[in-house]
């Protein structure tokens, strides 16, 4: 089962990965957290749905996303 890791301190909360990128729609910006740079980092809502396609990684400018399998 694939696993996606968001590097919260690297994430700049741009939201690109959260907008129509993930085929199973499990990414969003954490509404309740900010990192030490002041950004709301992305988070996975339901890891079990992930298919490991890597699209989230691919859209991330930092990159703040790692995909494992």
């Amino acid at each position, binding site marked *: 089962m694939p696993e996606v890791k968001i590097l919260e301190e690297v994430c*700049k909360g741009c939201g690109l990965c959260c907008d129509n990128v993930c085929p199973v729609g499990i990414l969003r910006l954490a509404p309740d957290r900010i990192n030490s740079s*002041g950004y709301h980092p992305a988070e996975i809502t339901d890891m079990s749905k992930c298919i490991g396609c890597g699209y989230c990684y691919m859209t991330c400018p930092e990159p703040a996303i790692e995909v494992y399998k």
Partner: protein
Amino acid sequence: MTKEFIIAGFGGQGIVSSGIILAYAGLFENLNVTFFPSYGAEMRGGTANCQVVVSDEKIASPVVVNPDIVIIMNEPSLLKFEPVVKPGGMLFFNQTLIKSKPARKDVEIIPIEANKIAEELGQGRIANMVMLGAMVKKTKMVSIESMKKAQRKRFERASEEQLALNDRALERGYALF
């Protein structure tokens, strides 16, 4: 009498505006003022700070190295500016966002729940106004009226609603002590 300020925080926290409002307030009270923004070495993101000098004499240097008063809006700025405050000076800090505790004993430490209060007023991004309100009460550098006038000058094109909200935030800060 000359007072030197540094206001510091993240890019989006209204740091530059705070400095300009303070400078305007000084100007309205016929004081001499200088304002100097510093974007740090990094051009994008990261911290921002500005230096303000308010004085009843002609101001020589606008460069503030050891401020009398600092207003600190985020964690990294605390690290950077706590050490340089003049002994006997004041350190205002945004307790909502800053987890660390300032350790200096020779300066007056004033914690303020700026973001919390701002959220209560309905808008997180006016936390800077809360800080400014608190600061003028404590320092008595300028009057709260001048600050209100100054923010209206700064945000000329803002809605009356927003301007009123800013006033309220200033007042809430002012009322803290």
